């Protein structure tokens, strides 16, 4: 096993001055900013994040210990909480007065648990007796109460992405009341109760803030509850219970993630995966709530992959003095000083680092043997394209070659995603064409994710190199190509002609012409002009290819010119003429027919041609001239004969003179009149 760590900390962490007795560190989840407040702000506040580039440094008066400090959205106003009664504001808008102003909570005897900015100038205070939503007027240095709600609050959590505030109420703390903020309004959502593993006898606060987290997974908001193992209840190990919190409607328990162990855990969400860190074993598990597990009860999930630790991380020593000889120090992972924030943030306050957790996909390939499951997993990840393509190559080549059913499953899964994208795209195009004005807002252009692996991706990265590989049995190559074509067809995706060309090339290379013939016979290789031309080129090695090609051109019905060219190149002038006659020559197309007949004539004149060719031309001229009759020599020959029912067949050619065959003469005569001069000039 080469590389097994499928989780890693980002390369360039946000660095800040580590926490100490003189330096307090705060993290704002909304703006993802780290505040390093030295001596209450008197000796400086440094704000960093989220990408470490734009840091803000300023000073403020030391008016007591800072409890909480956050910028409003867009770094317009800074809010600082120093007491349990009030919050202070400082303008950060240029040209506005910078003097601090303050706001006390409205409710009597309430103490402020914290605050959250919900907009650039809207802030909500959370007190132990309720919540208060304020609007801040930085120019007037005043604050106005918009709305308040009173209820007893144990603790709160805020999800900035969805602007949902979750309050823990009731004695045990397990009744959760969510609120949502939208455009300066505050709306109450349906409250719900978390099932506790044991109900404490004298009711006491038993749902801790640490065991609850909110995050969006696959676009939906979930409340994650870390349900610890309890000796009294029959739960052998801890689990994470996910409550789906829809915008409207009831909050429902939706998923259970089995942790299969006990101890201290922390949760992250990375790339829609739930990552559970286990401190005592120093490993992490990942769960994909969209991965169906047939062997489990509904919505109970086992880890996707075996537990592995985060990839070892070395802290580069980049202090003020860079000492190149000094090697980077290994960082202690899963340290107890780590704080974990949603969705993917890990902060080590003691070392002064903020990392983003990342999923590395290549190592997962070797950890999941079931390629079908692996594909399901990979297709939902963000940077999956190259990994998926490498898995495809892996199952086709080398020692870990998959069997055909495995290959088929993988192709089917890829094409399912591909098809869904194509359909969405088509819907969008249709909607745009029908009327962009009506519901253009609802119709968004579908985003092409990396999981959409189209035919050209497969061709360039997987199939073309696979077919050229030495030592692979051609049977297998053809089987794989056919399997891919089958899968595309099953998903009703139009197969691109270069895939067919690959099939043909492979078959020709191994002299499997009869196979090729059968595929074409059943139209498995769909008709196209390029394919027909390719077939024409095969004629010298496989004569029936000529017929196959002509059939294909005929079916295309847009390639009449090509058919005439092919026939002429075979010196089948009459065949060409008959063909021109057979395709519907309406008035518009008469010019074309004339042209093609001229072309045929020109062809014979210029090449001079073998003897029988000039003979044919004479035949053409005689048959097409008005009033001329058909003779036995001039093919196509329509002979009419009567045979007695017994005795030797004595067939005469009687009747041919008085019965001009069908409409040929008329048609050709019509078109001929314009071009006759050309013919006549030729002796």
């Amino acid at each position: 096993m080469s590389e097994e760590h499928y989780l890693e900390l980002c390369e360039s962490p946000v660095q800040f001055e580590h926490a100490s007795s003189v330096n307090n560190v705060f993290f704002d989840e909304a703006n993802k900013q780290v505040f390093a407040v030295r001596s209450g702000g008197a000796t400086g506040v440094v704000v960093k994040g989220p990408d470490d580039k734009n840091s803000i440094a300023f000073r403020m008066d030391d008016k007591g210990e800072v409890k909480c400090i956050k910028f409003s959205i867009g770094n317009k106003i800074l809010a600082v909480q120093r007491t349990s009664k009030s919050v202070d504001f400082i303008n950060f808008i240029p040209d506005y007065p910078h003097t601090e102003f303050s706001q006390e909570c409205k409710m009597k005897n309430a103490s402020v648990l914290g605050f959250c900015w919900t907009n650039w100038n809207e802030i909500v205070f959370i007190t132990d007796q309720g919540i208060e939503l304020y609007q801040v007027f930085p120019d007037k240095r005043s604050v106005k109460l918009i709305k308040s709600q009173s209820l007893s609050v144990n603790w709160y959590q805020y999800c900035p992405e969805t602007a949902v505030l979750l309050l823990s109420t009731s004695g045990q703390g397990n009744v959760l009341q969510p609120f949502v903020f939208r455009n300066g309004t505050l709306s109450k959502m349906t409250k719900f109760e978390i099932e506790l593993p044991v109900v404490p006898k004298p009711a006491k606060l038993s749902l801790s803030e640490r065991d609850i987290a909110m995050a969006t997974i696959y676009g939906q908001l979930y409340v994650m509850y870390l349900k610890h193992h309890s000796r009294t209840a029959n739960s052998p190990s801890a689990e994470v219970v996910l409550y789906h919190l829809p915008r409207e409607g009831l909050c429902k328990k939706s998923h259970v993630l089995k942790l299969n162990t006990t101890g201290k855990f922390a949760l992250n969400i990375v790339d829609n995966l739930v990552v559970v860190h286990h401190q005592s074993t120093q490993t992490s598990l990942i769960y994909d709530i969209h991965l169906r597990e047939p062997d489990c009860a509904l919505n109970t999930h086992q880890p996707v992959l075996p537990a592995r630790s985060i990839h070892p991380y070395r802290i580069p020593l980049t202090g003020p003095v860079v000492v190149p000889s000094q090697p980077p120090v290994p960082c202690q992972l899963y340290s107890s000083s780590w704080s974990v924030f949603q969705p993917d943030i890990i902060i080590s306050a003691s070392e002064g680092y903020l990392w983003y957790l990342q999923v590395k996909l290549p190592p997962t390939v070797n950890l999941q043997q079931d390629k079908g499951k692996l594909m399901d997993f990979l297709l939902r990840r963000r940077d999956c394209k190259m990994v998926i393509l490498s898995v495809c190559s892996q199952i086709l080549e080398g020692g870990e070659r998959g069997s055909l059913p495995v290959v088929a499953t993988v192709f089917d899964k890829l094409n399912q995603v591909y098809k869904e994208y194509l359909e969405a795209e088509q819907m969008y195009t249709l909607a745009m064409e029908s009327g962009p004005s009506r519901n253009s807002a609802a119709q968004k252009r579908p985003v092409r994710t990396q999981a959409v692996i189209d035919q050209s991706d497969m061709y360039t990265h997987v199939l073309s190199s696979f077919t050229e590989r030495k030592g692979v049995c051609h049977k297998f190559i053809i089987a794989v190509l056919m399997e891919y074509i089958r899968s595309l067809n099953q998903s009703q995706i139009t197969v691109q002609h270069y895939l067919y060309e690959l099939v043909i090339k492979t078959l020709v290379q191994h002299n499997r012409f009869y196979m090729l013939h059968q595929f074409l016979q059943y139209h498995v290789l769909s008709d196209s002009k390029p394919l027909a031309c390719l077939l024409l080129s095969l004629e010298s090695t496989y004569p029936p290819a000529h017929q196959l090609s002509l059939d294909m051109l005929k079916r295309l019905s847009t390639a009449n010119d090509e058919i005439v060219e092919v026939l002429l190149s075979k010196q089948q002038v009459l065949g060409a003429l008959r063909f021109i006659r057979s395709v519907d020559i309406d008035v518009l197309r008469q010019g074309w027919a004339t042209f093609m007949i001229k072309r045929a004539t020109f062809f014979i004149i210029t090449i001079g041609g073998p003897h029988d060719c000039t003979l044919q031309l004479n035949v053409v001229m005689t048959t097409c001239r008005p009033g001329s009759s058909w003779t036995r020599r001039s093919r196509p020959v329509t002979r009419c004969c009567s045979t007695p029912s017994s005795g030797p067949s004595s067939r005469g050619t009687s009747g041919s003179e008085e019965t001009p065959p069908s409409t040929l003469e008329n048609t050709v005569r019509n078109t001929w009149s314009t071009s006759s001069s050309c013919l006549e000039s030729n002796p």
Partner: protein
Amino acid sequence: MLIVSPRMAAVTQEKQYTPSLLSFFVYNPSFGPREGEEEKKILFYHPSEVEKNEKIRNVGLCEAIVQFTRTFCPTKPAKSLHTQKNRQFFFEAEDSYWIVMIVKNPMVEKPNKDGKPPTIEYQEEEVLDTVYGAVLRQCYSMYKLFNGTFGRAMEAGGVELLIPKLEKFFYRYLQTLHLQSCDLLDVFGGISFFPLDKMTYLKIQSFVNRVEENLRLVKYTAFLYNDQLIWSGLEQDDMRILYKYLTTSLFPRHSEPELAGRDSALRPEVSGNLLHYGRFLTGPANLKDPDAKFRFPRIFVHTEDGSEELHLIVYKAMSAAVCFMISASVELTREFCERLDALVGPQLTLLASDICEQFTLNRRISGPDKEPQFKFIYFNHMNLAEKSTIHMRKTASVSLTSVHPDLMKILGDINCDFARVDEDEEVIVKAMTDYWVVGKKSDQRELYVILNQKNANLIEVNEEVKRLCATQFNNIFFLD
């Protein structure tokens, strides 16, 4: 032996005799070049009860005719000899190995008054060279399919091996020759392909590939449905003769028990496996039988360097039949057959019902009533595809046609005509009995249509044929 199916003519007590086999022999002139050793030339002679000297005389005559005609055209010696009573067909199957078939001309026996012996009228023109020449070549191909070439047997064991081989094969095979019902289809020796949509076809491909991957021993696979070919891993020429064997000999022999229904005693014991309907048509009838023999017929097919010998396993579930061909050097065991049964049985059952469903669906869409009931024969030389609405379902004993033999004869004549020239041609014949027969040749394709329209004129017939081409052959390049 003579009276095969006397047909009563309308007029008097006329008796009609159809063409029948008089004799059939295989010889090699180089085996008895000296006088007195002529008998050694003869490798097989039917009927065997013919006196030795007569055999020698007949063989000698054939040899002489071939030698004599060779002086006129060294590359193309005589193929047939017409006499009043018989017609002889010569075929040099392998270098100096000749096969000769002598067919009695059909005749009419007219009773005379006054107790005089009846007058016999031989209808020597009724026999077509192309048809019986093709039958003769087919005899050899069939021998070669199951025994390999004559030369191969000679190398392996000399005349002592070749003669019994020939006897064993032709004794049985000649009994199945039904010369009276040979016609144009024997000339073509075509393959009927099962019409199928792309998706189902790809599913079958997938099935074949998976089985071949799973059972590595399987070298070639062929897939048939309703006695029509869907996929052949064999090359065209081998498939042609194997197809002939399957559809005229093997399948008809096994069709009766299936038609008999589930509860019939005729139906072979379903081996306790209710999961699928798969069973072996060659090899063991019942896998559960402890005495079951795991012997399969062996066939010879062409390879790039000569030929190879293969076991032929034919496995069938409902209307779908699959041929698995495995190198004869491998011993086939009970375990292998059980594995094959377990793997292929359920999949094939499913596939067969899929195809059936798709087929009925397609038929409903196209509408059986919509397409006019034309009687036609179509053949494509390039892929050997053949389609006939004239012939009924073939049985082991006889192939039934729905038209008068005279019309079939006209078709044969037109075909001979077409064979003579390379170019496209069209022939329209008005037969005496209100029938019109149209033959068309375009590139490598031939189409023969029989129309029964009273008082139709040539233009109408031509239009009618055009209509047929437009409905039935609109997806191929078939010139009007």
